[in-house]
């Protein structure tokens, strides 16, 4: 009994001592820890800016939506004393049945889909098979790769098919639980407090319902995750782009800019270019949270988020729609592969419409369709709908390039306004090793020779109007027979670059390429060959090595239209805040002023006017009642695998015609132009046949519906 009493005293002293140690000596530490438990600084996400067209019509907006996620560390642990009960799995099953994944096949599909994305195809299959579920596989065509089958055959694209688990049939609840468990184990290795999304695209009412029912599920979180909605889908997808999770390889860069890696960011189009502005700045607030992570109250000051800016575009929805439809029907009619049409205000560089076809539905990316559905379809489309051909495709500009050559020739004094050059049929460049053997000479024809027409002596205005090639061959490369000295490679390259070729135009879209302006030096480096007069001839008519993006051709046209100012094209008109106040107004950006003597550009403009308005002009079909239009057609020959004719070792068809891209550039009104348009159809045939009707339709709409006279 004495021992027992002694025991009581000792035990009492030990416990009180321990209490004293914890509560008094180390009390401050634990108080900090306790505050850390309950106080959390939360990011208040700023709603992303909305995109409007020039007239205030909404093009992209945020649809409120919620996602359901599980926080790994808040799931019940598998208790060691109950080895035959899977506490974690049971809780996951409860959450899944709460959201009806067991009864609604659509939801079951969606959960599986998200798990598929989270885990990837290998781990997805592994998660199911290790738990004893049968996995069906489907074969999908993979990415195409160019493979050389034999040395004497051209490289052929070969698709590399692979198998993916079939996710098109709804899985039973236990299988879904298994997948979620796997995904959670995966995440737990990283950060156990980071929620794993299991279902998204939930409407507000449903989300409220779930949050009431989820009271007993500490791991379940219902987070707002607005979906970006593109109202006009395909019509604006290349302009607006789309959003998605931050790509792994750019993670560092985004973290440096203050991004949270769970955020979605713009990956292409304006969504990318104006990512920072449209995102705004998240705010912060300190909240007291209970163990379920529910906010009990807000403590202290709230730092309000800075709302993302709205974009107002220069583009007019009505014009864009007409452009899109007109180009679409031209492509279908010609059975062409793709095409571009762009309209710009030549006085300030404002882009009035921009269409690249084929297009795609950018909502597909916002709503995260899985890889073997719409997304795969877009990926596997040989016409590459994701590519914006307006800025990412490079093609020989064809006869539209004669705008550059004629300006250069006048400015450099190679020709005067009245200088005439004789078109008396094809001209020949003799082979330097066999100067007397005409059969070895290189023959250069003008398009009209095919129809048995020669144009005779013509000046620069007539040459532009008739699109005579002989004139430009000689202006570009000189003509030994008449001792006529042409511009030569260096001057042509110089003027091409002055007009904006060879470098990105600086439009506010990502992915723009510079395209190639060939020079003698380039050719030597690339082919180890000297620049020849023939190369100059080809370049002078926009063929050969010369390449341009449709947008560069448009900038060139606008420069001619406005008399010599190169403007940087801009899609965005204004940035506005949530109240509609203008944050950044439109200011035209002048890239350069061309060094021109007065009157030079007038002659080029005159040539383009005659092309439309003279009786024998090449673009007379683009005339519009009441508006004076000026234009220039282009038919740029090309050769590719599709058209290759092994018998002729070239792309010539039976009638010795090469396939060609159709170009047409135009501006109007002739005096004081308001709009310049470029239309390009890949493999579209004659510019005058395919591209003119599209442009004409656009100009008619502009002048009759949008800005009626």
């Amino acid at each position, binding site marked *: 009994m004495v021992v027992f009493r002694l025991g*009581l005293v000792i*035990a009492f002293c030990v416990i009180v001592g321990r*209490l004293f140690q914890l509560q008094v000596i180390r*009390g401050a530490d*634990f108080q900090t*820890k*306790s505050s850390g*438990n309950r106080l959390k600084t939360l990011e208040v996400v700023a709603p992303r800016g909305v995109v409007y067209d020039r007239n205030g019509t909404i093009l992209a907006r945020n649809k409120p939506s919620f996602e359901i996620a599980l926080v790994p560390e808040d799931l019940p642990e598998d208790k060691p*004393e109950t080895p035959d009960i899977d506490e974690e799995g049971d809780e996951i099953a409860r959450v899944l049945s709460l959201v009806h994944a067991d009864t609604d096949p659509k939801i079951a599909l969606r959960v599986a889909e998200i798990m598929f994305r989270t885990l990837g195809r290998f781990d997805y299959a592994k998660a199911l098979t290790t738990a004893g579920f049968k996995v069906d596989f489907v074969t999908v065509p993979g990415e195409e790769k160019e493979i050389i089958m034999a040395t004497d055959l051209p490289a052929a694209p070969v698709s590399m098919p692979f198998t993916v688990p079939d996710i098109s049939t709804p899985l039973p609840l236990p299988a879904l639980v298994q997948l979620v468990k796997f995904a959670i184990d995966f995440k737990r290795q990283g950060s156990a407090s980071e929620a794993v999304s299991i279902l998204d695209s939930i409407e507000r009412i449903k989300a409220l319902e779930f949050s009431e029912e989820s009271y007993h599920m500490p791991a379940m979180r219902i987070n707002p995750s607005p979906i970006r909605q593109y109202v006009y889908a395909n019509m604006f997808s290349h302009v607006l782009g789309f959003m998605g999770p931050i790509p792994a390889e750019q993670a560092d860069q985004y973290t440096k800019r203050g991004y949270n890696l769970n955020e979605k960011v713009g990956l292409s189009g304006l969504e990318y270019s104006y990512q920072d502005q449209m995102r705004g700045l998240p705010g912060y607030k300190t909240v007291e*949270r209970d163990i379920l992570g529910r906010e009990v109250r807000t403590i202290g000051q709230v730092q309000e988020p800075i709302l993302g800016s709205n974009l107002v575009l220069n583009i007019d929805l009505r014009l864009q729609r007409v452009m899109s439809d007109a180009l679409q029907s031209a492509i279908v009619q010609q059975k062409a592969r793709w095409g571009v049409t762009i309209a710009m205000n030549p006085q300030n560089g404002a882009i009035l419409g921009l269409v690249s076809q084929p297009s795609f539905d950018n909502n597909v990316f916002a709503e995260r369709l899985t890889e073997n559905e719409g997304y795969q379809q877009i990926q596997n489309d040989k016409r590459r709908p994701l590519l914006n051909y307006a800025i990412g495709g490079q093609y020989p500009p064809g006869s539209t390039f004669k705008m550059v050559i004629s300006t250069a020739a006048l400015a450099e004094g190679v020709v005067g306004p009245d200088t005439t050059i004789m078109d008396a049929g094809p001209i020949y460049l003799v082979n330097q090793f066999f100067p007397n053997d005409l059969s070895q000479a290189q023959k250069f024809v003008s398009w009209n020779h095919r129809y048995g027409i020669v144009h005779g002596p013509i000046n620069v205005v007539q040459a532009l109007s008739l699109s005579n090639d002989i004139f430009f061959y000689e202006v570009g490369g000189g003509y030994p027979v008449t001792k006529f000295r042409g511009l030569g490679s260096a001057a042509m390259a110089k003027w091409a670059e002055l007009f904006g070729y060879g470098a990105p135009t600086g439009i506010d879209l990502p992915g723009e390429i510079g395209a190639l302006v060939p020079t003698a030096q380039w050719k030597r480096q690339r082919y180890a060959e000297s620049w020849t007069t023939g190369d100059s001839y080809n370049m002078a008519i926009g063929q050969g090595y010369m390449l341009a993006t449709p947008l560069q051709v448009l900038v060139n046209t606008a420069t001619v239209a406005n008399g010599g100012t190169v403007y940087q094209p801009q899609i965005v008109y204004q940035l506005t805040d949530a109240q509609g106040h203008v944050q950044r107004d439109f200011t035209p950006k002048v890239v350069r002023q061309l060094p021109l003597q007065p009157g030079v550009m007038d002659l080029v403009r005159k040539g383009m006017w005659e092309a439309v308005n003279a009786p024998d002009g090449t673009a007379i079909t683009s005339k519009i009642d009441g508006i004076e239009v000026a234009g220039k057609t282009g038919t740029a020959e090309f050769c590719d695998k599709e058209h290759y004719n092994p018998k002729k070792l070239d792309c010539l068809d039976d009638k010795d015609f090469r396939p060609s891209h159709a170009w047409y550039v135009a501006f109007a009104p002739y005096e004081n132009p308001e709009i310049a348009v470029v239309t390009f159809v890949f493999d579209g045939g004659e510019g005058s046949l395919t591209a003119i009707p599209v442009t004409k339709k656009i100009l008619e709409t502009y002048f009759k519906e949008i800005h009626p006279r």
Partner: protein
Amino acid sequence: MYDRQVWRYFDWPLFIAVLILCGIGVGMVYSATYNTPDLSDYWTRQLIFVAMGLAALIAIAVFDYRHLEMFAPPAFVVFILLLAAVDVFGTVQSGSQRWLNVGGVLVQPTEAGKFLIIIFMAWYLSWYQEYLHRLSYLVVALILLGVPLYLIYKQPNFGMALTFAFIGGTLILVAGIRFWQIGLMAAGSIPAAFFLRTKLQGYMLERFQMFLSPKDFKAANWNVDQALTAVGSGGWFGNGWGQGSQNQLHFLRVRQSDFIFSVISEELGLVGAVIILILLFFIMWRLLRIADLARDQFGRLMAVGVAAIIFFQTIVNVGMNLSMMPVTGLTLPFVSYGGSSLVSMMFAIGLAQSVIMRHRKIEFQ
């Protein structure tokens, strides 16, 4: 049988200490549960349990404990049979087979068994008091204790098995055994410890390891860690009743029973926690006094047994709250929420009261 005179010796200080603890218990259960929808009526339930416990206390106090002697052996046999029945027909819940399904109601025989084992061991050790110096009688005592112990350990219910062992051990020691016998038992416990080490059921071993090296069991140690944070943030006077953030925001799990001491420490501080401890140890002290005054060995051992139970549960529960002991499901006597544990504790106090009310050591009628 009823004698008005016996109330003269009713231990009022003990009774009042128990009442105060129960009162604090109800208050703390309220603070721990009022903002949890499913548990918000727990404090009223606890109040009802207190009333039931008081009734049991008075009823047992009135009853002459000496009549229990004749119930002890048959009750023990019934208890063993019940334990065996649990082993064979018992209901499994969260992995343990501890319950008997009696017409839809789950009954856990071990909870009442704690007190039964006190009464039975007290009976055995007092009945054969003269023979205990013989090894055989001691061994029989150990076997009688060992049978229920084994059945409980098998359920598995490690905490309860330890409780039984502690009560039995204390009673045997207090009943008076020779020092060489203690030495022999100590010698016997060494191989037993090794045996336990190899045979300890998985989860028990894990809990011990968790306690010994908490860093390896970060996730599993979460509850203990939160309890420690709650206790530590209390300081001298606590955050105030109903103001403990660890408690109110539910960072403490099973806060109304297993971790009620953390709630007290957080909200009432060192002062409040020490008051609770003083009350508990005061109760034990009074029980030992009763043991000293008891008129016979049976009463003496019963009082010691009750003190031992309260002592063991207090040490283990508080030790768990303060991260000094591994996690077991043992509750804090009189304070933790729970009808069966509260009523049986009050019942045990009633037993002790019955002993002291009839001690008549100095008094002559």
